């Protein structure tokens, strides 16, 4: 319902030392009409120019501090609020090279009233 708004393309930036970036980060929103506990966010699948990045490379932080996807599974006291940006950072040695890239985010959610997982997808062209 909000797929086109998941990635804030203006927020995509490299992280780590400026001369030797260790990855990149961006602000994202949850593609759902309400907030959701972090334990129900099963996957944040990220691709760069079509290359799928490993699950273990992803960190998520809606404010209190970064968590891996494995840690989110039992983060029962934390929620991603409706419409609220959260920071997704990705280990990606060297960061994104200067120029244009396609960054994609797929969210896989465990929505209790649905018989199957819920998927949201957004892809944005970004320039570093």
């Amino acid at each position: 319902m909000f797929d086109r708004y998941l990635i804030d393309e203006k927020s995509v930036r490299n992280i780590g030392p400026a001369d030797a970036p260790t990855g990149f980060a961006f602000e994202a929103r949850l593609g759902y009409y309400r907030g959701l506990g972090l334990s129900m966010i099963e996957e944040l699948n990220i691709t760069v120019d079509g290359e799928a990045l490993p699950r273990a490379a992803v960190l998520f932080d809606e404010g209190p501090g970064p968590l891996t996807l494995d840690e989110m599974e039992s983060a029962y006291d934390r929620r991603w609020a409706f419409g609220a940006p959260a920071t997704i950072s990705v280990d990606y040695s060297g960061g994104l090279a200067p120029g244009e890239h396609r960054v994609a985010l797929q969210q896989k959610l465990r929505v209790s009233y649905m018989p199957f997982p819920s998927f949201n997808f957004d892809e944005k062209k970004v320039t570093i």
Partner: protein
Amino acid sequence: MTGIERGVSLYSFQEEMFLGQMSIEDCVAFAAAIGAKGIEILPEQNMPGFPNITDADIGWWQDLMARHGTHFTCYDMFLDTKRRKDRLMTDEEQVESIHRDLRLCHRLGIRNMRVLVFVRPDILGRCVPLAEELDIHMGVEVHAPWHLEHAWILRTIDEADRLGTKHLGILPDMGIFMKHYPPAFRGRFEREGARPEVAQFIVDQHEKKVMCEYTIFEVAVKMQGNPAEVRMAETLRHAPYANPKRIGDYAPYFRHIQAKFYEMTPDCTDPALAYDEVIPELVKAGWQGALSSEYEGNRWIQDVEPVDSREQVRRQHVMFERLLAQREGEAV
């Protein structure tokens, strides 16, 4: 005068709220400005701190209602039975979660709670004592593809009858009265690649009320439909046209209506949902409660045009006023 009041669910403004273009107060002020004084909320959408809601938060909401001359009509609950990856919530955990919502609903001074349709009737039966104590009606959302006489819905009604309670029942979502296929859906699928002649076939099949699986097979297999065409055909699984004439039979079981809609035309008619048949039946039944706008058209048009939820809701309320006034005129 009928006992039907006009209201708005904050769900209607999800596009603008999500994008930070409207605040909660903007939504409530707009509702008040069009005379829709009944406000339905989704705490898990509208209260960022949920479920940790302080008395100061409650006070803020109550002041907001007072400032705009509005009042709450309904609290939309959720139940995260799949909160844990390794197992479903136990029955006791489900009851406790619903109790949490009943208590927050009560603190807000709200007397109707929308219950998700998938919640089991026996779990709700266990929540009836607290609902009675707090005087809250738990209404199971009758949402497409369920409909008023779906056997799953009838189980909740049976449970309410068995317990002899007025605090458990249903809460219809008007999407169950889809008399015509929504033009907004068709437009979206055509933009995604559905050929106009195939889209027209699907619309015609829905208009004739052909059972959806025939149409899906025709499109997917015989016509070798493309993905957008197959997806469009599959929406027919969620497009029931329940019989408005049965509303009177069920009116004792509901106190609130989610007035779902996907689009309103510039002349303030709904091209898809049969409000012109439903509202007279509600009036005839002497039903009392709120028609609470639930605009859900944003997701169908946001790829081509800016969403204007306010204008859509305004048009729906022009239609409500017209249909309600017609019935009152006839009653006189």
